[in-house]
């Protein structure tokens, strides 16, 4: 079906790959390696474990896992790795990318379509990459009368703030980028940045549609921030802590959604509003105000906003999991690392290798991550579902919902939580200490 490369032949493609590998190896061994050795000859090398670091020793790291693994293990516990890869940006971006793909296929199934189909052969799995490439290659157009510095910095601020939100979510026991003792307050503070960014970029674009969209975003986010904070207050009352890791830890036996279902519902509705998803997508209502506060963004600036939106989606779904669905807690389903590999080593043919530093991740962390991902994906699917079912609501109904109904409901659950606490059902001597 593809018309991109009608003359495509797989054999020639593979042959060209071998060609490239051959030339790279040839050039590297004839030119690269001598240069590396010449440089190493003149540089004074550090001493590690009583051995001078020579190129030979460096090479053994690649070949000998018992030398490599401790280094990798140390790397895994550095803040750098936490921020870039696992509980931080890389993990969140991966889940966000999966979310975009799942959203498109899921919505297509609701609407009796097929969704992305051709890009990447298997069910259009590479569609997102194609879209990303398209966005990167597009021209970035800045309106002539825009306030250029603020307009430029808007998308970056948006992604940065979304990333800050991601960094507060604990994925497994001890696996969190930032673990302040007032984690929940930090979440509230970070959420408070989004309306400012919306209004700033909307004003900087100097366009009527962005202006209306920005004001709508401001109204919506402020109206839903208060019930959002109030709905989480009942969890704080029950746990007595603002630290997200401790809140997750406290749900080993019962999830808080059992005791605070109204809070969970209020929080879920607030998530939808904060994420500007249907039915609360007024700031981007296409048929009314073109694209709202995103109207003037083009190319990768729009791409960054989209990235930020989906990071935010992941962060809120993770927050819901941590606060109401028990976070990483769950029955142990991940198989334990086979103990005889640690004691006796691995036998591959005639060679038996004893590798120090195994396993890389302990069973608790892998099991916790698995449960966290399962729960978060479930919440994300629930967040995606209204898009196929509901139309957009109107601004007066939106404000009425936020300021009147949700705040009332959140207060009801706060009283329920207080009642549970003072009646002794929860807390000291109750079901949960």
């Amino acid at each position: 079906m593809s018309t991109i490369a009608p003359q495509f032949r797989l054999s020639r493609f593979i042959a060209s790959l071998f060609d490239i590998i051959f030339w790279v190896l040839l050039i590297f061994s004839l030119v690269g390696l001598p240069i590396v050795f010449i440089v190493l000859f003149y540089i004074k090398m550090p001493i590690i474990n009583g051995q001078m670091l020579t190129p030979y020793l460096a090479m053994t790291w690649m070949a000998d896992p018992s030398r490599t693994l401790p280094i990798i293990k140390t790397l895994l516990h550095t803040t750098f790795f936490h921020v870039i890869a696992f509980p931080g940006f890389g993990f969140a971006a991966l889940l966000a990318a999966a979310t975009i793909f799942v959203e498109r296929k899921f919505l297509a199934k609701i609407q009796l379509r097929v969704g992305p189909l051709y890009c990447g052969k298997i069910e259009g799995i590479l569609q997102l990459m194609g879209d990303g490439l398209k966005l990167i290659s597009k021209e970035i157009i800045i309106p002539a009368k825009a306030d250029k510095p603020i307009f430029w910095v808007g998308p970056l601020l948006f992604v940065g703030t979304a990333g800050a939100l991601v960094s507060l979510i604990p994925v497994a026991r001890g696996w969190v980028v930032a673990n302040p003792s007032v984690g929940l307050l930090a979440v509230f503070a970070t959420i408070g940045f989004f309306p400012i960014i919306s209004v700033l970029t909307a004003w900087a674009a100097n366009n009527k549609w962005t202006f209306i969209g920005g004001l709508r975003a401001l109204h919506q986010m402020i109206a839903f921030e208060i019930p959002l904070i109030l709905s989480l207050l009942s969890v704080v009352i029950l746990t007595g802590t603002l630290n997200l890791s401790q809140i997750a830890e406290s749900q080993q036996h019962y999830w808080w959604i059992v005791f605070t279902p109204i809070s969970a519902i209020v929080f879920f509705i607030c998530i939808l509003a904060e994420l500007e998803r249907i039915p609360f997508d007024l700031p981007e209502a296409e048929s009314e105000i073109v694209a709202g506060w995103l109207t003037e963004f083009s190319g990768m600036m729009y791409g960054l906003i989209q990235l930020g939106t989906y990071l935010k989606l992941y962060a809120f779904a993770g927050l819901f999991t941590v606060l109401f669905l028990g976070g990483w807690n769950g029955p142990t389903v991940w198989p334990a690392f086979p103990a005889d590999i640690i004691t006796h080593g691995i036998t591959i043919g005639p060679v038996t290798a004893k590798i120090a530093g195994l396993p890389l991740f302990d069973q608790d962390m892998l099991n916790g991550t698995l449960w966290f991902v399962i729960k978060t994906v479930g919440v994300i699917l629930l967040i995606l579902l209204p898009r196929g079912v509901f139309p957009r609501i109107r601004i007066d109904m939106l404000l009425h919902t936020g300021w009147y109904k949700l705040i009332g409901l959140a207060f009801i659950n706060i009283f329920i939580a207080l009642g549970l606490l003072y009646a002794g059902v929860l807390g000291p001597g109750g079901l949960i200490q």
Partner: protein
Amino acid sequence: MTTQLPPGIQLEKIDDRIMTLNVGPQHPGSGHMRLIIKVDGDYIVSCDPDPGYVHRGEEKMAEYRNYIQNVPHLERPVIHDSSNILYPYCLAVEELLGIEVPERAKYVRVIAAELNRCIYTLYWLAIYGIFLGHSTMFMWPAGDRELFIDLLEAMSGARVTHAYLVPGGVRNDLPANFEERCLRQVDYFEKRLKEYQAVFYKNPILISRTEGTGILSRTDAIRLGTTGSVLRASGVNFDIRKKEPYDVYENLDFETVVMKEGDSYARSYVPYLEMFESCRIIRDAIRKMPKSGSVRTKLKPNPKGGNEEVYKRVESGRGALGYYVVSNNRPEPYRVKISVGSFRNLICMPYLLKGELLGNMPAVYWSLNYWPVEADR
């Protein structure tokens, strides 16, 4: 207020509060037209519709072609309701030229017209859905339209611009087994229509969003000259198929859908209920249709009309659609004037939008059953 103000204090001018928005023609919620909307905060102060971006001079073009050559270009204003926009032209020309239409052709015309009405209404409903942010309601009708498009393709050979109705009958007879296929698809379509109700018309958010917005009272609806579903949603029982029956509509069993509310919800619900009536008409017409016979009266080459004028109108998807055709002993018409429902319904838009929220603009605008291309002709 020309009194002396303290130094440094100014009164706010009304122009500072009011922002003028140019909705269209390059706006996702406008269609091929422009609305100049003035808003005070989120409230619409005034709305000035500005049609005419797709004016194609259909009426003038009709004066340079003979009666048969006029058929394909006259359906262009509403290509997805092409049978209904050709219907009054065929009726008028038949009266001018004194042509008698065979009985079977009259039934086939009715079937084509009702199928086309469903195609138009589904298209309209799809856009109504996406205007309200309901993307499923965009995809479902757009997909189910294919059922009727396939049927009309089997009838006429073209998927969209059929040019099926011609003066003297229809262009060609129905294909073999058309009746069974048509009934099967209509049965399936009625099942799908009930699902629309579950996902769209009974949706609490949709109801709370469209109920009570843009209310057009019965007297205003008559005074402003609206037609079609807009008029019927305001409680006026007026359907040309019932009031001035043409062809075989008087033999067929159907009812006029009337609602009393006159708000956006009623205006969007009436066309939906009319699709059920269309299905009824199609079933009834297939049952009562003569099973064989001619479907087209042979015309003289290049027929000339007498020195007379004719006005014929039918009920299209957007209301009364009339053709005023004047002939003066020549093969070409002297004048063709098309009176379309879209343009008449547009007149009440400034009246309805005044004082509404900006968020209601798409809901009210598209509930008027307005098709910009038809309004410009």
